[in-house]
């Protein structure tokens, strides 16, 4: 983990006082605005993981969308490698967007069902447009290997893959553009426990080998604590608590952290120590 300690000097992403309001449209009169994000600030350092936890409706996904450039913030600024995103032209913003990739909860809905795995993996490379046909194909196979998917799956359709394989494919597709930041929006939540562990391990491997930076958005405090260097707890569009996982687990300061902690279903037994592998 030497790369990690050397590169933590400047943040990869810096978010300053981010605000996003949605107007609530009514048939008669105008409703009050929904403050999805209400002044959020944080930094994520290179090669680290920031977990954002909170209940449904706390603004976690809006935050992901703003960072990925899918939503324009109402006010505030996002800095990516010292470039402020708000002042950019659409063309420059597109170049930065490539470096920030988003992975959703249910990858099944984010693939074209008629495309083969290879087509899915090469499409972002086609859009990028500086690779030849053969190069694209070989980099697609390299991506499959990177996420431990068999090259034999190349000709399959997404519907022929299992849930875990689909999530690996989503990660592979995101990696194709060599992003610096991966936003994982509830990316493990729909998976079985054993698959969650597999994908969590894959994310850690990729972080170690590629120096990836993650924004891990989840309502699962236990998994967040396992993966993250820092946890931010969100409630009603604001970060109410921030700190190292150990601190939040052992001394939760805010009411919402305590509630989230209490809601983690627990096996009522002392578990064996985590195995080395």
């Amino acid at each position: 983990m030497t790369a990690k300690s050397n590169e933590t000097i400047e943040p990869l992403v810096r978010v300053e006082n981010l605000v996003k309001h949605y107007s609530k449209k009514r048939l008669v009169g105008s409703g009050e605005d929904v403050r999805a994000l209400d002044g959020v600030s944080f930094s994520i350092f290179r090669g680290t993981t920031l977990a954002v936890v909170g209940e449904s409706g706390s603004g976690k996904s809006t935050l992901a969308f703003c960072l990925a450039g899918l939503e324009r913030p109402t006010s505030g600024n996002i800095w990516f490698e010292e470039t402020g995103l708000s002042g950019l032209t659409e063309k420059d913003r597109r170049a930065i967007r490539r470096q920030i990739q988003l992975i959703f909860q249910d990858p099944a809905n984010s693939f074209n069902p008629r495309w083969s795995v290879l087509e899915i993996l090469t499409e972002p490379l086609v859009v990028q447009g500086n690779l030849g046909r053969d190069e694209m194909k070989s980099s697609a196979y390299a991506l499959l290997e990177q996420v431990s998917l068999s090259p034999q799956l190349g000709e399959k359709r997404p519907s022929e893959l299992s849930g875990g394989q689909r999530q690996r494919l989503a990660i592979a597709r995101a990696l194709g553009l060599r992003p610096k930041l991966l936003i994982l929006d509830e990316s493990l939540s729909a998976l079985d426990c054993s698959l969650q562990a597999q994908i969590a391990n894959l994310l850690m491997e990729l972080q170690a080998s590629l120096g990836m930076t993650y924004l891990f958005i989840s309502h699962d405090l236990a998994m967040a604590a396992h993966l993250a260097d820092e946890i931010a707890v969100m409630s009603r569009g604001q970060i109410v608590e921030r700190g190292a996982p150990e601190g939040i687990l052992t001394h939760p300061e805010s009411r919402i952290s305590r509630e989230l902690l209490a809601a983690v279903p627990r096996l009522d037994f002392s578990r064996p120590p985590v195995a080395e592998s």
Partner: protein
Amino acid sequence: MGSILEVRDLRVSYRSPGGNAFRALDGVSFCLESGEVLGILGESGSGKSTLATSLVGLFHANAVTVSGAVFFEGQDLLQAKPGDLQKIRGKHISLIFQEPSVALHPTMRAGRQIRRVLAAHGTKGGRGFDQRTRQVLEQLFFAEEAERIARSYPHELSGGQRQRVLIAQAIACGPSVIIADEPTASLDPTTQKEILDVFRALRKSLSLTMMFITHNPALLAGFADRILVLYAGRVIERGPAAEILASPKHPYTQLLFQSIPPLFGAPRKAGQKKLPAISGDSYSPSLPREGCPFEPRCPERMDICKSREPVLVNLSETRTVSCFRYEDR
């Protein structure tokens, strides 16, 4: 206590689009005792949802073979006529599904959806239905809230409220068995806890008999009386919940429990500790098989595991496991 539902050697096969049949359930037998909560623990492909629906005779159109028996009050439900089954479903055995947003009618008020369950099993006349609807809703919501919920459409309700409405439908006719298939899967943890508490409370007040199907063993802790672990359409381990949760015996169950990240106690610094995940992919029932279905992923596999299937071994009067590691005892 006596058994209220008995499942004997249930086998269900589906035909896949490719044409080959795969077995979703492969010889499942168990009894559901009156007043107990039986936890069915299984991941994708284990056959748990097929089990839930088979018990009330709901089969997918592509189910090709069904064999075995499901006895409820002396009647084999698999042999029952469709009309007889309809009288049993919702009245004597209720099913609660995992997606409350899909299970409710989108353009019908919640109260009316509960009332329709009562009307379908028509025990009391018009006013009786309204009264019972209110009564059921008040068991699940605060009295002052119940009225508003009854008049709401599903889209006006939160996920937790919708799930409560589904539970209200399920208990409306006072069934003797409730089968809940991942009832909290689509909810966030705080709402999930709320719904689990609802089940706990109802269990006490109505002395429910329940089958609770989930992929998350932690949801069964402190709730289920017994646990049955399903893998590849068969029961691989069963016993009292407290014993299984404290010391699982089958390698699959052991690994499954370890793959859940611990909240306290274990080192968890990012990048340093891996979770002991089960290698490989979840079981694909379309593969031809010989030997133990977990063998390809099992870290403790032996030569014998490939050659034939393990049988259920009794470890004690209440615990069984299907693994060769225990066969010599």
